């Protein structure tokens, strides 16, 4: 079932990390409002391949809003015009026939473009590696119900833990700050008793790594929360600041 929407796309094309990129125009026809935004790109790419040209590279995998792979900056907003969803969950019914849509990759110094709309987000992995874990080896755990955790804290920890690591927060921020991403992990572990033993060291190392990766500072404008597909709250940034300040005041790293 194809539809009847015709659209003009202006898409960032860049051969590789070293090449210069540019916006290229494409016409897509017969788009159904029930297609997802990425399925519309599939249609476009099939066309491009048939013409013997190079299809547009973009990251995607689960296509149900949970893996955090997809990362398109659509008409100036990460993951497009709707709130609380990823690009793969955006459907063409959110656009009108005849629309012109501009699609760019995430823009941040810490997320270099690898090709077209694909960026390198390994900086996020390195931040987690610097301390976003609880140091417990397999086999060391006590019984799961040994420590009761008040439902309120368990729920808040879960809300923070829903971060999918897509990078929309960084792309939305005028400073390319990664504070929302870092604060989500810090909050999850700070709210749970299991995370307490390493809390101080965790927040110090993760902030150090964040700075080293070249992410900018947070100026509390809140664009990150507004664009986060999982609607991670800015409260987490406040908690991160508290955790960081209290860790620094009593830091062992002096």
């Amino acid at each position, binding site marked *: 079932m*194809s539809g009847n929407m015709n659209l003009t796309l202006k898409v960032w094309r860049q051969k590789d990390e070293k090449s210069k990129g540019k916006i290229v125009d494409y016409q897509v026809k017969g788009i*159904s409002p*029930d*297609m997802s935004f*990425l*399925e519309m790109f*599939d249609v476009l790419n*099939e066309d491009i*391949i*048939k013409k013997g*040209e*190079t299809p547009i*590279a973009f*990251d*995607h*995998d*689960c*296509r*149900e*809003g*949970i*893996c*955090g*792979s997809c990362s398109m900056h659509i008409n100036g907003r990460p993951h497009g015009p709707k709130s609380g*969803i990823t690009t793969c969950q955006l*459907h063409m*019914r959110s656009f009108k026939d005849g629309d012109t849509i501009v699609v760019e990759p995430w823009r941040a110094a810490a997320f270099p473009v*690898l*090709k077209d709309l*694909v960026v390198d*987000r*390994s900086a996020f*992995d390195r931040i*987690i*590696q*610097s301390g*976003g*874990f*609880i*140091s*417990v*080896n*397999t*086999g060391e*755990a*006590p019984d*799961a*119900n040994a420590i*009761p*955790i*008040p*439902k309120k804290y*368990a729920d808040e920890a*879960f809300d923070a833990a*829903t971060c*999918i*690591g897509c990078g929309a927060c960084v792309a939305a921020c005028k400073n390319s700050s990664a504070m929302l991403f870092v604060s989500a992990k810090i909050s999850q572990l700070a709210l*749970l008793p*299991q*995370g307490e033993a390493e809390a101080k060291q965790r927040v110090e190392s993760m902030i150090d790594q964040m700075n080293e990766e070249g992410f900018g500072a947070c100026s509390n404008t809140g664009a990150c929360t507004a664009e986060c597909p999982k609607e991670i709250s800015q409260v987490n940034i406040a908690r991160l600041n508290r955790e960081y300040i209290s860790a620094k005041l009593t830091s062992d790293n002096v």
Partner: protein
Amino acid sequence: MILDSKIPAGPVAEKWGKHKFGLKLVNPANKRKYEIIVVGTGLAGASAAASLAELGYKVKAFCFQDSPRRAHSIAAQGGINAAKNYKNDGDSVYRLFYDTIKGGDYRAREGNVYRLADVSRNIIDQCVAQGVPFAREYGGYLDNRSFGGSQVSRTFYARGQTGQQLLLGAYSALSRQIAEGNVTMYARTEMLDLVMVDGVAQGIVTRDLVTGEIKSHAAHAVLLCTGGYGNVFYLSTNAQGSNVTAAWRAHKRGAYFANPCFTQIHPTCIPVSGDHQSKLTLMSESLRNDGRVWVPKAPGDKRPADQIPEAERDYFLERKYPSFGNLVPRDVASRNAKEQCDAGKGVGGSGLAVYLDFSDSVKRNGAAWVKEKYGNLFDMYAQITGEDPYKSPMRIYPAVHYTMGGLWVDYNLMTTVKGLYALGECNFSDHGANRLGASALMQGLADGYFVIPYTVGDYLATIGPKPIDATHPAFKEAENSAKDYVKKLLAINGTKTVTEYHRELGHIMWDYCGMSRSEEGLKKAKAMIQELKADFWRNVKVAGEGEELNQSLEKAGRVADFIELGELMVDDALARNESCGGHFRVEYQTADGEAQRDDENYAYVAAWEFKGEGQPEQVHKEALVYETVKLTQRSYV
């Protein structure tokens, strides 16, 4: 080759304990002299890589995604089973074992399944210690819910994102080991081949998905944790990148492929809306706890749901299976939905859907209660369909979700290739002909956290810590053959895209090797697949070049492998002249239309051996021995 499952003798509850004691150990100081390759970083891969690195082994981990955190385990929604009996409702290791064997329609190994049920308890402990935010009750203790195929509440969950939370737990453990230098992580890297030296697995060939560079890596053991092959059907609930390539290329190097036709069709997915569709979205089975499945009693009734009076609705699962009701196992629920639709009672525009209705639950508990439990699933439904499931019932239809078949492994999880292991969905071992809900996460983590750390040590202690010779010509040969393969794909330059071939394969598989199968249909499918394969290699068009980020090329290799696997699935389905679990041969059914097993002739694992390009594969049979459980006709009435 005679298949030796290495299941230890003795009572089922003592097998694993005795076996562990018999396994050789590697001295702590020697562990760092061994290198282990782990392919895939989902639940099985990430947990294995982290646990082995914690023990001191040197691990190299690979994933095709841009980060190990994105493997498709992340999409699992509903939960993870564990025999904790926190609910005091009669659960036990034995009951979880029994439910799993029965749910699998008596086509799984007793020894493996008992071990799985046994270590399930340790998994929950481990995950909580890592900070996985499972749902809790007001007293602060862990909450549980029910899942299909069981009458106890043993499913631990983290709202509708259990897979994500468990994977992030394993990913955090993996990240810690990467930081400590015990794991070298290769993201955006795909395995293209297995390197065999004198009949033993000693490494892999990979392609860097950013630069296109093809190279080899040597190791003392190779662990494939590469997931399932549901994407052979084109449309499935799997991620776009999920593929069989690593497992298939290992198969061609000598690893037998077991029960490839055992596929799980999940009953509660959002129905297909059009040809453009690239994937199907699952609605968690947990919804069947509180949602009621129904169709209109009269065929062709096209009135909207709210205009169909109660008396004219058929709650067919509750009617046919009063004791399990909406919580029958997946294969039973799927088949019944298809049966209703085939009888003309399907709903929605396509007529290929049944209702999943929460109105009773909303009346009983309030909309806020439903939102707290299932909110994100309802949002997902609304986002995809544009309809509000709080107001009108969801429409659902079965979709391909999981593959019980996979590489044959023994009790140690070793394949028929020495030194090559398969973990998680990639192997065949624990779910028989049908997997119970919330058991995939359990198996992935059981294999990675609590089985492989013991069993791989036994093998490594046997071969000794001598470094693997990466200059052996086998490495260069495998690299060159992978390079030639890429060149060959790029050189065809035909007229049909990879996606077109994939879609065509999917139609064949769904129509003839899907929810119901017949001898006639399967024979037809075999011919169609052979034709499709020949056409693919004549006429496929792969865009771009080899030495660059090229998603068209990645997909071409995967689809080429799916086509070959599809043919083997059809062969396997044809050879199994019985119905069991998800494998439903229309010729073999009971008077009530349930799957009719033939235990006398088919209580075996079919393990297929690759005999060369274009040659028919040879089947080897591992008899399934039931020492503890009595085989009966599965009944959920």
